[in-house]
Structures are given as structure tokens and as C-alpha cells.
């Protein structure tokens, strides 16, 4: 691998007595799409949230795009602009329009004027296919549309990496497709993406690499075909078997 854009080493995370991450190494190359799968409680969401320091790792090192995320001297708010994050529950600001959601950080963090932020905001909404919904509030949008606005909110800041934390788990099945489509187009534009999700079909045809986590550790990783067809570990086999039965 050339110089990775995300380089996390020996990440441990304790929640009180609970040892959630037990020394995870994850390196992601530029333009790579890494899929993280695993049973609930395996630590995959926690790992993702450590990468932009929404969770403080107990130990380890994380370097994203050359920035040492765990260095106390790092301006974390500045660093976070480069790492977009999309949440399971969208977390749009309900008191703002779609455009307001997308432009808030542009104005407050990136220091853009309102006019410039609006222009970039409209462009981001256009990329997720919601140019005509700019003035709608989250309550007036479907779940799929809300999640796409959330994606627009992140990509408007032109991040170097995007983290997706179960982006389609809260959606009705018929709305999943529109979100996956946006993710696919992001991938085609060369975005580096780390995705925690159970969308195995998407993983199979879009991911460069699938990482299987269990009990706070990466058990096995490789190209989707290898992980899904010929997993080498018993735990991976059991998990893949379980999700493919559904």
C-alpha cells in the first residue's frame, strides 16, 4: 500500500470495564472503499467514531491525511473538516432548511461568506440529487432524502475521507437505493470511504476491501469475493452464513 490516508494503529478503547477495541490496526489507501462488517457489539462503530475522535481512544495512534488526530496540539475542529461523517439517524438540524444544514459548517468553520456558502451548499445538494429541496426542512423530507442531505452536509466541506456509520439501517427498504446510489457516485468521484454497514450487495460490487470485526478485533480482511466466498476463519464463516440466510 502506498502512503495510507488513514493510518490507525493499535487502537484500544475501554468503556469503564468494557474493552471494546482490543488493538485494532486499520490502514486505508487514498480512493479506497473499505467496508467494515461484523456482529453488533464487535466495535466497528466505535472504531469509526475513534477515527474523527468523537470517541477518545484509550490508546493507540491515528493519523488521517497526515494529521496526528490524538496529538493534543492538533486543532481537532480543523482536522474534522477533512473527515466527513454520516450517521445512522441522519442527525440533521431540525430547525434549519436543507441548505441551512449544509452551509452551517461552511460559514462557521470554513469561514465562507453567506453567498459563497450558499453557492457551495446548492452544489452539494445538487450532487446528492436534491437541488430542488434546498428550502425544505428535515421534517418535510423522507428518510432517504434526509440521509442524502446529511451526505451533502459532509461533502460540501470537501473532506479527504468519508465515514459512514450504518447509513441505511434506519431507512425503509425502498429508500435504501437512493442513498446507495449517492454513495456509489461518491466512490466514482474518487472519495476515500470507510463504511460500516450490512448492505452486503453494495459491499460485494463497490468495496475494494472488506474488514470483518468481532469482539474488538479485526479477524479477517480481503477483497469482497474472498471474504464472502472463501472466508478462512470460523467466526467469519459463521457471520457470513448468518447474514446470507436472510
Amino acid at each position: 500500500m502506498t502512503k495510507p490516508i488513514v493510518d490507525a494503529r493499535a487502537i484500544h478503547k475501554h468503556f469503564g470495564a468494557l474493552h471494546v477495541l482490543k488493538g485494532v490496526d486499520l490502514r486505508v489507501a487514498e480512493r479506497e472503499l473499505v467496508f467494515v462488517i461484523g456482529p453488533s457489539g464487535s466495535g466497528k462503530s466505535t472504531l469509526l467514531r475513534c477515527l474523527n475522535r468523537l470517541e477518545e481512544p484509550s490508546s493507540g495512534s491515528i493519523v488521517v491525511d497526515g494529521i496526528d488526530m490524538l496529538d493534543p496540539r492538533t486543532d481537532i475542529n480543523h482536522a474534522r473538516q477533512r473527515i466527513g461523517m454520516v450517521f445512522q439517524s441522519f442527525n440533521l438540524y431540525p430547525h434549519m432548511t436543507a441548505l441551512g444544514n449544509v452551509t452551517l459548517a461552511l460559514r462557521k468553520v470554513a469561514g465562507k461568506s453567506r453567498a459563497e456558502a450558499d453557492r457551495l451548499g446548492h452544489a452539494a445538494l445538487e450532487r446528492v440529487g436534491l437541488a430542488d429541496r434546498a428550502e425544505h426542512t428535515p421534517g418535510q423530507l423522507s428518510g432517504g432524502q434526509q440521509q442524502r442531505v446529511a451526505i451533502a452536509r459532509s461533502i460540501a466541506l470537501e473532506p479527504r475521507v468519508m465515514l459512514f456509520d450504518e447509513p441505511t439501517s434506519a431507512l425503509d427498504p425502498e429508500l435504501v437505493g437512493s442513498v446507495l446510489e449517492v454513495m456509489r457516485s461518491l466512490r466514482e468521484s474518487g472519495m476515500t470511504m470507510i463504511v460500516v454497514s450490512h448492505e452486503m450487495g453494495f459491499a460485494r460490487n463497490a468495496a475494494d476491501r472488506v474488514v470483518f470485526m468481532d469482539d474488538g478485533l479485526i479477524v479477517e480482511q480481503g477483497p469482497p469475493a474472498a471474504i464472502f466466498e472463501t472466508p478462512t476463519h470460523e467466526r467469519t464463516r459463521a457471520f457470513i452464513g448468518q447474514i446470507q440466510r436472510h
Partner: protein
Amino acid sequence: MSTWDRFVDTFFNGKVMLKYLPDILSGMVVTIELAVLIVLSGLAAGLALALVRSLAIRPLNWLIIFIVDLFRSLPPLVIIVLMYFGLPYAEISPSGFVSTWLSLAFVLMAFSEEIFWAGITSVHKGQWEASRSTGLSFGQTLINVVLPQALRLTIPPLTNRTIAITKGTALGTVVAVTEILGEASSAVSNSYNPSPLMMGAAAYLVLFLPVVVLARRLETKFAWKR
């Protein structure tokens, strides 16, 4: 004289009312001054305490909780009396007006801090995370994302509490503040007729009904479409 006439003559005596109208009006001015001061300083202090509390500095939060619980449990009258009659022993002699203002402002601060705090904590954790993940600082998140949502939830309980405490300006009578009730009761004793009290009641209605209506407007304004 019929019973009705006697009732009107007693409670709505035109002559008495006309004579004491200027007193009631000047009482209204005092009540308005007190009320505005109490509401502004009480709510500002309450919001400030809630914001400090959101920083989660433990010893500071214990102090805030202690102060808030203290002022929520003491009857406002006791605080006014303590301030007016007690502070002079510490070489500070606040007037009746100042004692009433500060006492009720402290009470409003205490209650509104709890209401603001409840509003802030009711905003979903995901809102903080979404905002922080895009690089907004703690303070920027609080001001741009959390407070607008929190304040909307706090408006109904806040108005109720504000109105209840502002009506407490009537307690100022015990420390010789010439607000509506003070003027009305001295007029009652001077005229041997309860009509001024009726005028006082009317004055409170004139003052507080618009506040209630305004509160309703605010509630509608802050209710975003779901």
C-alpha cells in the same frame, strides 16, 4: 338600595375609583419597572448558569445546583424580607424596590436555569455529534445547533414560571414598595372601600394578559414544521 346597587357601590365605587386612579397608575409603572428588571436579569442569569453547567465542570456544577435548589425551595417572601431587613446588618441597605427586584430575579434565575438545562439536555446527542463532526466547536454547536432547539422546548414552561414569579412583585408591599397592590391596599384603608383593589386586579390583567398572548405567539413562531 338593591343588593346589586350595594354590591356595585362597594366594589366598583366610581367616586373612589376616580380618586385613586392616579395612585393605581403610578403603582402600575412601578410594577412594570420591577417586572422588566426581574424578567431580564432573572432569565439572563438563568441562561448563563445553564450554559456554565453544560461545560460539565464538576465543582462548579455542584455550586450551581446548590444555589438553584436553595432559591427554588425558599419562599420568595422570605428572601425579600431577609434581604431588606437582614442585609443592613452587613452594612448594605438595599431599598424595598431593590430587595424585591433582586430576590425575585434570583428565584426566576433558579427556576429558569432548571428549565434551560432541561431544554439543553433534551436535545439529542446525535445533534452534538453531527455538528462537532463537521468541525464546529463546543460553543458554536451550543449556540447554533443546540440552543435554538432547546429554547423552543423551554418557551411554554418558561412563560408560566416567568408570569408566576413576576406576579410576586406584589410581595414588595411588605417592604414598602409602592407597586400596584401596595397602592391599592393603602387606598382601601384610606377610603374604607375595596374598589381600589378591583382596580388593582384590573391593572394586573392589563399587564399580564398581553404577556400570555405574546407567549402564545412565540410558541407558534418557534414550532418548526416536523
